[in-house]
């Protein structure tokens, strides 16, 4: 190999200071750009979009009952905050309640299925039927059969949310390392020990993946439930507020409630992503940042 007699090479050969070749310099530049772009890009785009929206509504003189500007929506949000926060609390309770029930139901059923293939064979068809039936289509029946409003709404949100947890957990429980499985057999592990020390930890990453999907679905379920079941009075959730505002053509009120729904969804996702990271970052590939 012929070495180019450049100044750079000479400096490197003299051994003066650390060697930073052009490739390494480019890599460090890319790293810096990546770091800044990571938050600057989404924030920048968001600000630009909101700004354009504000400008467009004002410039084109679009009336509030068609499309309110962001500033009007924010103002409405603060104006309605006392009543909206009560509605938010109702929706939040249903969402979290449904998510917890979906976690217990989906996770529990998945464990049951791995413990007994017979139970899985017997129950799986019903699980699938429950999953593929459009929830809107059976809402009137649920309305008819369940008296308590809270139970109705929870039930609908639960049906929507539990399937991804079930299928992800079942997949995780089934994909244990087969050599580890043999090892547990050789060491005479009991069924409980195998579940507790092998299958549950193996399934944790996919279970948490299911939870992240279900978190969003539980919120959607809660909103859909309120839309279809209706509810008024002081227990009304955010979905009802959206409906109510739309009947009265109070579009800014609609947007204000919608913003709260979206913020709630994002918050649930972020919390679940944080929990996932907390539980997995020490050992699981998905949570490890490569050097």
């Amino acid at each position, binding site marked *: 190999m012929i070495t180019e007699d450049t100044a750079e090479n000479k400096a490197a050969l003299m051994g003066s200071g650390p060697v930073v070749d052009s490739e390494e310099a480019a890599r460090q530049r890319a790293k810096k750009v990546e770091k800044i772009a990571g938050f600057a890009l989404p924030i920048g785009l968001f600000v630009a979009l909101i700004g354009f929206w504000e400008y467009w509504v004002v410039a084109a003189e679009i009336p509030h009952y068609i499309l309110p500007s962001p500033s009007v929506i924010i103002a409405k949000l603060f104006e309605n905050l006392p009543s909206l926060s009560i509605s938010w609390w109702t929706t939040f309770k249903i969402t979290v309640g449904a998510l917890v029930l979906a976690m217990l139901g989906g996770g529990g059923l998945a464990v049951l299925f791995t413990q007994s293939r017979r139970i899985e064979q017997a129950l799986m068809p019903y699980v699938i039927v429950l999953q593929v039936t459009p929830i809107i289509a059976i809402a009137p029946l649920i309305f008819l059969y369940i008296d308590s409003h809270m139970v109705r709404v929870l039930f609908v949100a639960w049906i929507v949310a539990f399937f991804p947890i079930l299928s992800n957990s079942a997949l995780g429980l089934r994909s244990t*390392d087969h*050599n580890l499985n*043999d090892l547990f057999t*050789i060491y005479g592990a009991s069924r409980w020990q195998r579940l507790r*020390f092998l299958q549950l930890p193996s399934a944790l990453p996919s279970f948490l993946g299911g939870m992240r999907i279900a978190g969003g679905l539980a919120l959607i379920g809660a909103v859909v439930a309120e839309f279809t079941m209706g509810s008024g009075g002081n227990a009304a959730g955010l979905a009802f507020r959206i409906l109510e505002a739309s009947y009265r053509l109070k579009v800014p009120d609609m947007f204000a409630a919608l913003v709260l729904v979206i913020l709630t969804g994002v918050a649930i996702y972020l919390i679940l992503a944080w929990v996932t990271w907390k539980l997995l970052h020490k050992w*699981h*590939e998905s949570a490890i940042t490569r050097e």
Partner: protein
Amino acid sequence: MASEIMTSPASAGGDTPNKRPLLASLRHVDKVFGTDVVALKDMSLDIHQGDFISLLGPSGCGKSTALRIITGLMQPSRGKMHWEDPEAANNLGVVFQEPTLMPWATVEKNVYLPHKLKGTPKSRVQNDIDEVLELVGLDKFAGAYPRELSGGMKMRVSIARALATRPRLILMDEPFAALDEITRQKLNDDLLHLKSKINCTVIFVTHSVFESVFLSDRIVVMARRPGRVIEEIRVDAPYPRDLEFRTSAEYGEIARRTSDALLSAIGDGDDH
């Protein structure tokens, strides 16, 4: 130093020159999968205390099947897996080709696993765990997670786990096959060192002639279709074995003979 060849498969049992007490034996074991796939045909093997036995053969010769029958993961279709002391059957050490560690547990907790499954509290075996970790040279990595370790280090953890309960018999299924040559050689040296220290019995499945000659005192050569023992070769060179042995004429001679046996084992099948 003399090495003798015993060519009859059935003669794998019987007296050993050094009169080690019998630990366990496979007696005329057949294993048939489905109705017609014969994985193992009439295999007999006496395992004596302190033996280092290599099962050598092409893939599909039934060496892993034999190992599974010894561990009790599989029952023979015919014949018998006999244990002199049934207690030994309940305390086995196993090392697979993959390190097979629990990624969510630290090195120390991985090594604790066999004790944990037997219901022994950690505090009572902490000394044993520390000791085996030191034996495999990983005492400084007790708190590390498997992903932080190299392939060779993971394999050491796997070996430490197999040793944790001080088993009488350790079964190793091509444990170093996935490692690079240098790491592999180092682990071979360390394995012999470990064995001399804790005085256990080892059955080592491999498809490497040189590995089997370097490590074992008995090489059981197996052929396939059906899987069976075709020859047993003794390696009488004394332990500890080192670089000198690896370059000796004796080593070369046994390796050549083992290689010939393996070739005829492969020839017994059609392709390879």
